[in-house]
């Protein structure tokens, strides 16, 4: 669900380069300080006098600052201006942490303001959350937590204690929810149902593509007709998938067909609907071998493959939920990305059509009631 935007990719190189530069700078300063060069001694003493908590908070702010500065070219207008201010602010505060005592409060304000601004931008749809943006927020959240820990203990009243205990977890939770809400509120054109990413295709199908799509449906229907009885499918090597209370459709997979590519005679799975009279064959599912490996689309936009990502899969009961923007899942489940798949529905799938990622809800209800 959250990929790396191409224009944000340079941030990774910049972050790695900064860490290498900082390491080399500390080594070089140490060498110069050993030679009793006065300004180097001052810098090294300033560095050594700070606690590891301060040092890490400073490095994280420098990282965030450099990431913001590197991303300026990909952000226009007011967002770009804010990136300049933000990046420079973080660098000033990161450096100030080593040599001043006033940096902590401005850093807290800067970090909270940056995180809140990102949430607002994402929810408003002015910024698309991607892994670079989310990783940057994680860096800022940890920097915020460290900076909060450096607070001098004040009066030990209960409201203060409670606030100190919940402020940081609350901020981390609000950030997660904010990014999530923003991402779900403004999905891009390639998001089908939640967790399904569609193959990029042309907008309009050519007459040849329409013919090819119709041929794929008829070939698939003819090929799988022999599996109307689930027992025939099992005899042919298809294994029934687990029953899920969340999904009334059952997939029967055949691992022997794993290497076939969009071959109607060797579909990777058959799809049955649970009706009052037992299982009814409603379609086939073609699947590629690896995630990100889109299959051939003879029907162009009509035969658009999709892959599932950003979902938490639990082997206990074959169930799914959504993973958070920080890529966390409930204990006992794991994030998975499926290889691309293409459904071919041999029943009338209403408005969604024969290649939709999902079965039309109305059709599904009719089948369940039949």
């Amino acid at each position, binding site marked *: 669900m*959250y990929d*790396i935007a191409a224009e944000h990719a340079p941030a*990774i190189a910049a972050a790695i380069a900064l860490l290498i530069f900082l390491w080399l700078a500390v080594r070089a300063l140490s060498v110069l300080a050993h030679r*009793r060069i006065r300004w180097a*001694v*001052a810098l090294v*003493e*300033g560095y050594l*006098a*700070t*606690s*590891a*908590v*301060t040092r*890490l908070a400073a490095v994280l702010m420098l990282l965030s600052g450099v990431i913001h500065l590197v991303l300026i070219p990909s952000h226009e207008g007011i967002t770009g201006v804010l990136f300049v201010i933000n990046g420079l602010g973080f660098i000033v505060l990161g450096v100030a942490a*080593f*040599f*001043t*005592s006033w940096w902590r409060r401005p850093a807290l304000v800067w970090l909270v303001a940056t995180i809140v601004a990102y949430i607002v931008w994402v929810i408003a749809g002015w910024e698309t959350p991607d*892994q*670079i943006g989310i*990783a940057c927020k*994680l860096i800022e959240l*940890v920097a915020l*937590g*460290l900076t909060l*820990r450096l607070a001098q203990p004040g009066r030990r009243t209960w409201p203060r204690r409670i606030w100190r*205990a919940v402020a*940081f*977890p609350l901020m*981390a*939770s609000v950030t*997660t*929810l904010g990014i999530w809400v923003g991402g779900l509120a403004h999905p891009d054109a390639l998001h089908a149902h939640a967790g399904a990413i569609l193959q990029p295709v042309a907008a309009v199908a050519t007459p040849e593509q329409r013919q090819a799509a119709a041929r794929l449906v008829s070939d698939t229907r003819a090929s799988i007709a022999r599996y109307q009885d689930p027992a025939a499918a099992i005899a042919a090597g298809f294994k029934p998938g687990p029953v*899920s*209370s*969340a999904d009334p459709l059952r997939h029967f997979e055949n691992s022997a067909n794993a290497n076939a590519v969009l071959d109607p005679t060797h579909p990777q799975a058959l799809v049955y609907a649970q009706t009052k009279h037992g299982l009814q064959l409603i379609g086939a599912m073609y699947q590629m071998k*690896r*995630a990100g490996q889109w299959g051939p689309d003879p029907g162009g936009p009509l035969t658009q493959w999709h892959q599932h990502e950003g979902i*938490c899969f*639990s082997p206990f*009961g074959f*169930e*799914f*939920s*959504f993973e*958070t*923007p*920080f*890529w*966390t*899942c*409930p*204990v*006992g*489940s*794991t*994030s*998975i*990305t499926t290889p691309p798949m293409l459904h071919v529905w041999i029943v009338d799938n209403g408005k969604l059509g024969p290649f939709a990622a999902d079965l039309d809800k109305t059709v599904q209800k009719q089948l369940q009631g039949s």
Partner: protein
Amino acid sequence: MSITSPAVAASATPSTTSSPEIASVLVVTQASLSLVAGLSAIPFGIVEPGFRVLSLITIVIAIGMFWLARNLRRQRRWARRWVIALEALSLVASLLLTVLPIGAMRGPVPVLVNLVMPAAVLWLLWSRSGRAAFKKAERSDAGGAS
């Protein structure tokens, strides 16, 4: 030849307590992310009974991690042992998932959250300064008790 400003000297804290402090912040961050993961699975529990249990377990573990982080900051040795065990388990599970072809680790965010953060906590608690901080706390506790 020291030219360190008094302000800097005043802001400095003893480095032996830094490892537990940093580790506790990282554990609180992990706990917060786990808490949201657990809470967000609750709606799925309406139709998926397995996620009812998993979300509840996740929330309980997240609360436990908050408690461990608090005691880590207070340099309790039992908290250190528990956090090391949990983080090691988490790291091993994440490494196994990285090897499996299921796309569990794609991009910087899962690597930071599932690999770098547990590894950092383990390193902080296992490092010489980390061990020293907990030994020092134990000695001061024993000294205070005698």
